[in-house]
């Protein structure tokens, strides 16, 4: 019997004409580890909700076809009954974790099924050990890091001892090592416990651990197959808005003739290295150096005077937690800075000082030669714009126009100019023409753009963006970052807080790495990313192509750079 059997499944949410999923057929056998990928709006989350019956029992709509979990049709059973066999872990760990401490969170599921308290105790012990949270029993979930919270969510699913666990983008908010840990645990469960795993994920490097990858787009399955086979088709992945593995992308770009002598497309750094050797590739180091110095020259040409100066900044929260412990930092006009670090390292606390949301408890922050403590936030926000991570924390107006016009109007800009600014801001974010739309009807990616536009319309010199790519698919991430890059080229100073290493590598000029409230690394991204060991200490991991380049002694940041310096037209030029 299959663990999951889906036949001709279609579903349209109540009040929507469009089918979120249409005509999906899929069978997953027991113990299989499946990763589901695809662009935003492909129907991945909807699909997950059908598996444990939340659709159509909890979320109503037009449902046809059938889903069977170990032979049981989900449509006719209560969600809570199906939880014996299948448990979902959601992306948003804030809403799914609700207990006072770790062990009670894990106990909640078995309690619901009337498991004997002694047995619950044994399960708590075993599952916490399995997700490496043993010793955390009495901790309040709010005090855990993002990665730990997500592993706790997995533990609280595991304690029910289901046969299937389905996770919907469990690693979106996690730092690179946190992501790795979640997949490590999933992999162990499927191999050692023969548990069936279905994970929705954007990260290809993690997906390599899966047995099978299913690609969805527009509510349909467009491809499925062995994980290696799917990951070895960069073009197909790109079509589904999934970022291809960089090593594969590099070798694929060499062209079919030049590449592999019939061998498989390499997917990992190790495979890449042996292919490199086998093909007798060589890089032109001089070419890379000149490329790098040209890039650096271009970037630095736009730099001006210091706009933000941070001196020995200390921030202690009211509960005594010291989030920043003596930070020194100078940001010049026109820079593009990425602030990196583990969940809870103080990244957001730091940047919230730049527009006066937080005041230093020690040291000082000077913006445009004015001490932030002596300047009102109203004044500061004219200079420093701040885009929050979740656009839904700020969108309130009934039209996109009003939303974007909100800031300028508050600053007393005359209505005629407000109009011009809104038009400019919407053009910059690529939303021209949607002035009269309801912002709540837009996709997450578009709402993110509205949030950026609403900050842009106030024409701040400096723009801070907290996790601008979280929750977006690859294409959306790329276009969001292209937008930010354009803003930087127009003269805005950009500061992003991010977990995304490839975004940092491809777009930022400078990386500032925080650990426990202190700056541990600060410099050009290229110089920071070669320090792989030190990065691992702060739970960060450079992108695949950077690690690959490092092994070859080439400090590259992107696939394009590597392609350029392998330079096959080198011979032609000589």
């Amino acid at each position: 019997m299959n663990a999951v059997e889906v036949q001709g499944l279609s579903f349209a949410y109540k009040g929507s004409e469009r089918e979120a999923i249409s005509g999906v057929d899929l069978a997953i056998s027991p113990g299989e580890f499946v990763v589901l990928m695809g662009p935003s709006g492909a129907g991945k989350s909807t699909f997950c909700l059908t598996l444990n019956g939340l659709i159509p029992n909890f979320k109503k709509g037009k449902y046809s076809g059938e889903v069977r979990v170990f032979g049981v049709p989900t449509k006719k059973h209560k969600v809570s009954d199906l939880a014996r066999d299948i448990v979902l872990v959601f992306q948003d760990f804030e809403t799914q974790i609700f207990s006072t401490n770790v062990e009670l969170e894990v106990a909640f599921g078995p309690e619901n099924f009337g498991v004997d308290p002694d047995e619950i105790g044994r399960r708590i012990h075993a599952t916490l050990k399995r997700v490496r949270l043993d010793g955390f029993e009495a901790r309040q979930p709010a005090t855990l890091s993002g990665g730990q919270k997500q592993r706790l969510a997995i533990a609280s699913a595991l304690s029910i001892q289901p046969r299937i666990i389905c996770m919907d983008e469990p690693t979106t908010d996690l730092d690179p090592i946190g992501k790795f840990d979640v997949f490590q645990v999933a992999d162990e469960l499927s191999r050692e416990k023969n548990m069936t795993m279905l994970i929705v994920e954007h990260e290809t490097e993690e997906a390599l651990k899966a047995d099978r990858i299913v690609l969805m787009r527009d509510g349909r399955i467009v491809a499925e197959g062995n994980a290696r086979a799917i990951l070895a088709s960069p073009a197909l992945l790109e079509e589904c808005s999934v970022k291809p593995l960089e090593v594969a992308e590099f070798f694929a770009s060499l062209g079919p003739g030049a590449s592999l002598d019939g061998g498989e497309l390499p997917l990992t750094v190790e495979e890449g290295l042996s292919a490199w050797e086998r093909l007798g590739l060589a890089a032109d180091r001089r070419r890379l150096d000149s490329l790098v110095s040209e890039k650096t020259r271009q970037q630095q040409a736009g730099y001006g005077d210091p706009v933000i100066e941070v001196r020995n900044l200390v921030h202690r929260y009211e509960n005594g937690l010291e989030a920043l412990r003596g930070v020194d930092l100078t940001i010049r006009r026109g820079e593009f800075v990425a602030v990196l670090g583990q969940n809870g390292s103080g990244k957001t606390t730091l940047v919230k000082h730049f527009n006066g949301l937080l005041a230093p408890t020690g040291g000082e922050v000077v913006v445009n030669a004015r001490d932030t403590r002596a300047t009102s936030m109203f004044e500061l926000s004219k200079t420093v714009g701040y885009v929050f991570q979740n656009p839904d924390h700020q969108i309130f107006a009934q039209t996109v126009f009003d939303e974007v016009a909100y800031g300028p109007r508050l600053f007393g800009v005359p209505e005629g100019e407000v109009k011009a600014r809104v038009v400019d801001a919407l053009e910059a974010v690529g939303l021209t023409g949607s002035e009269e739309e309801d912002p709540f009807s837009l996709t997450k990616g578009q709402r993110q753009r509205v949030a950026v536009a609403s900050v842009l319309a106030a024409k701040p010199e400096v723009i801070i963006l907290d996790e601008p790519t979280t929750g977006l698919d690859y294409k959306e991430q790329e276009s969001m970052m292209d937008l930010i890059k354009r803003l930087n080229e127009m003269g805005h100073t950009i500061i992003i807080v991010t977990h995304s290493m490839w975004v940092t590598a491809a777009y930022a000029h400078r990386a500032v790495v925080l650990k426990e409230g202190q700056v541990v690394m600060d410099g050009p991204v290229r110089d920071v990313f070669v320090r792989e060991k030190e990065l691992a200490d702060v739970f960060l991991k450079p992108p695949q192509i950077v690690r690959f380049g490092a092994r070859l002694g080439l400090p590259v940041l992107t696939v394009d750079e590597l392609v350029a310096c392998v330079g096959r037209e080198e011979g032609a030029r000589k």
Partner: protein
Amino acid sequence: MNLYLYLDKDTPIHRMDPRAKLFVLLFSFALPLLNQHPLWVAGAFAVILAYGAAARSLENLRRIRQILFFIFIFSTLVWTFFAKGTDVLIWRVSRQSILYGIGTGLKLDAMIIAGMVFLSTTKNEEISQGLILLGLPYPMAFAFSTALRLVPTFVGAGATIAQAQRSRGLDIDSGSFIERVRKYIPLLVPIFLTAIRSSDGLAMALEGKGFGASTKRTFYLRFKWTARETVVVGLFLALVVANTYLTLTGRTLIRGLMK
């Protein structure tokens, strides 16, 4: 930011059966309410503080000190002018109305502190379990403790939203009353929508983990009503009974206060 009041400490009061803690809460609400004269209220206040100190929970006072201060000042002032007494000092202020004002201020603060000590010593799960053991059906007890649990979540979301709007230039503290009310719209709309979204998420997470799957639910936390519980609850009960007697015989009232 951590908004939970619960303090994970190992004191005899923390270890008590949640039913006993609920009884103590009830009695420590009753004690200040029974009295009128500030000296007697202060006595009830002292009992509650002593209980809180035994539970090593008074450190949370720091977190609610502003509320306590504000309520005390406000109610003292209000009653000083609105209560009536025989020994008039000036205009509406009398010796009795001042005493009554102070008494009422202390009363309210004592009750808030009693609530704080309860939340500092009792996990959410214990509250719902205590209520169940007292006869409340599980879904109701769970709804109650979840409501308590959601307060800090929504306060947290509200704080983030306020920060987001202030970053866009919103300045809530200026302008006329009408203007200020209008300024709250950009806060209320996202707070409301966030609340709906997270309740939806919570409901799905609960169902997805088998909430309500079995009519006979078990509880991992187990409690026993021992001699300790009887002694503590008995002590509070005795205080309430004695105080009731003294109040009925008029010994805790402010003489000369006119209602």
